[in-house]
């Protein structure tokens, strides 16, 4: 025990350095941002220090602003959902494939990350446009008579974000999938389980930690994504990050931009926190009901 405690202290000392750096370069600016969001903006004299929550009130009572927050959340949830569905087959393939196939899939997954998001989004512009490849195919095979409106829609934004962020979900899921003992599937199979049952009862539950990490990453990154939603959604379908950019760069209203940034941060953390809380409650009730099943069986 003595040894363990002293070891713990050693690690704590080491962890202290990045913790302090993190506090200085992350927490301090956020506090600064919060302070700024309570100031007032005067077009002639600039930022006027104050303790005034009126920008928050303005944002949260205006249906136009609330609509943009709503769209940002809906687009992020949809993107998270889409990446989760696509990640499982990709992660399975990534793990069972070997050699050049695995390398190729990996490159395809990471490519949108190492390419500028402007370039990636322009790629989608070409594919999703009125005379784009997707519409050509859809009309060509007779699924629609007129071109579908894909650009400048929420669907288009979700498609673009899913493409860029899929790698985070796939790698998180693949990482936890890799940790699963291959004998578990064999044991289940020998007991009569089909491939789908094995996925449902063994693989999926055991990859939940990876799925959770992936959802957290993809959801937060979608909430704060800028280039992709702006290029595919255009100026008509604004997301919150675009609104912040507008306020701070075009209108120079930094206090209002700061208030929006705090709202973005708070809603991201709030939604993630709510999901965690729900999981916590559900897990406890699930354990409880499992107990009662066994009690009843005696």
């Amino acid at each position: 025990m003595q040894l363990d405690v002293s070891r713990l202290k050693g690690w704590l000392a080491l962890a202290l350095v990045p913790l302090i750096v993190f506090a200085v370069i992350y927490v301090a600016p956020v506090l600064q941002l919060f302070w700024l969001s309570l100031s007032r903006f005067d077009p002639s004299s600039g930022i006027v220090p104050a303790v005034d929550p009126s920008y928050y009130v303005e944002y949260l009572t205006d249906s136009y602003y609330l609509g943009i927050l709503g769209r940002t959340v809906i687009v992020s949830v949809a993107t998270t959902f889409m990446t989760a569905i696509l990640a499982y087959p990709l992660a399975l393939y990534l793990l069972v494939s070997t050699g050049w196939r695995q390398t190729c899939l990996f490159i395809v997954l990471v490519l949108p990350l190492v390419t500028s998001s402007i370039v990636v989004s322009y790629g989608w512009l070409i594919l999703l446009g009125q005379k784009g490849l997707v519409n050509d195919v859809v009309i060509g095979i007779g699924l629609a008579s007129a071109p579908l409106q894909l650009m400048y829609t929420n669907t288009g934004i979700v498609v673009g974000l899913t493409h860029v962020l899929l790698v985070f979900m796939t790698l998180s899921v693949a990482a936890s999938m890799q940790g699963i003992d291959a004998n578990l599937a064999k044991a289940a199979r020998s007991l009569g389980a089909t491939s789908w049952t094995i996925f449902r009862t063994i693989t999926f539950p055991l990859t939940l930690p990876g799925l959770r990490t992936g959802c957290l990453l993809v959801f937060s990154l979608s909430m704060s994504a800028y280039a992709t939603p702006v290029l595919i959604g255009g100026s008509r379908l604004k997301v919150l990050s675009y609104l912040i950019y507008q306020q701070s760069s075009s209108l120079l209203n930094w206090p209002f931009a700061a208030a929006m940034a705090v709202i973005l941060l708070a809603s991201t953390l709030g939604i993630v926190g709510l999901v965690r809380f729900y999981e916590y409650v559900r897990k406890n009730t699930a354990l409880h009901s499992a107990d009662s099943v066994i009690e009843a069986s005696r």
Partner: protein
Amino acid sequence: MDSHLEIVTMNYIEIDDLKVRYGDFQALSGVSFNVAERERICLLGPSGCGKTTTLQVMAGFVVPASGEVRLAGRSLIGLAPEKRNIGIMFQNYALFPHMTVFENVAFGLRMRSASNAEIKQEVMIALERVKLAHAAEKMPSMMSGGEQQRIAFARAVIVKPSLLLLDEPFSNLDARLRQEMRGELLEMLAGLPIATIMVTHDQEEAMAIADRIVVMRAGHIEQIGTPSEIYDTPRSLFAARFIGDSNTFSGKVVSTDADIAEIEVGALGRVRGKNHGLNTGANAEVLVRPQRVIIAEPKSANTQQNSVPATVERVLFLGHRTEIHVRLDNGFKFVIWAPDHNRTDVQPGASVMLVWNVADTFAFPGGA
């Protein structure tokens, strides 16, 4: 062998000329053996001998290039693993870590769409049988290695499989725990009248558990027999060396008759042993078990015995036996197990005569 074997089907499982290739590696090159109903078979051999591959073919995880596996007359080849009704206990137990002990054991019944009431009843009976009814709601990670083995056993046999496969069930354990768990497994198997095939590289384990042992090497079978058959009448040098300890030395065959070969062993003179396919002039490897050799007075040997002079090097008292290390005149070393508790009469440095029966001497082709 158990006495009930006369009344059961001798070829309950028929394995016929199995061949498996992994790329350039011939994992199995024609493996055939039968398993009787309720018989316990051990596949024994060093790593890479094909024992695990044979098990994987039985379970359906490896498809053989050719050959046949029949269970109760019905071919298993082409049948998916989940449709074979074969129970497997894995080396690492492979318990589902996210399920309670109860759910682990219940898994097979759930796959067979048993009713909840039936599942509760059957699982509790199975857990009681392995003395773990109190642990039903616990998670596998909270259980000891021995308890995990019992859960894995209960999970594998609850569906009443037509065959039970055990894959190196003790190889992850230290020596003392291994002894303990072997006892537990034997106890659990005793109450279970189904055919069992166990894979192991540990000859002692195989001898303790098996009705018959299949000695494998490099993808083929060296010998099939009861533990005592293989120990007392090994049919190859490999089988003789793999099962049990032995003293070996090499020489040249000077004469042979139907069952006895006479071998010239350098400066030691001639020894005689049971001939296993040797011709005059061939190189031979001679084996004798350590407990078959006795230390005797010079010139006490008769014609049915071999005798060579030696010098005692060390005498080790090991409790249940005394181990005497001797050096023969040509430099060969011998180990002798004496059942007498403490051979104080034999002292290091003493000149002695080693004597053993010709019938206990095996002569195989091989050696320099």
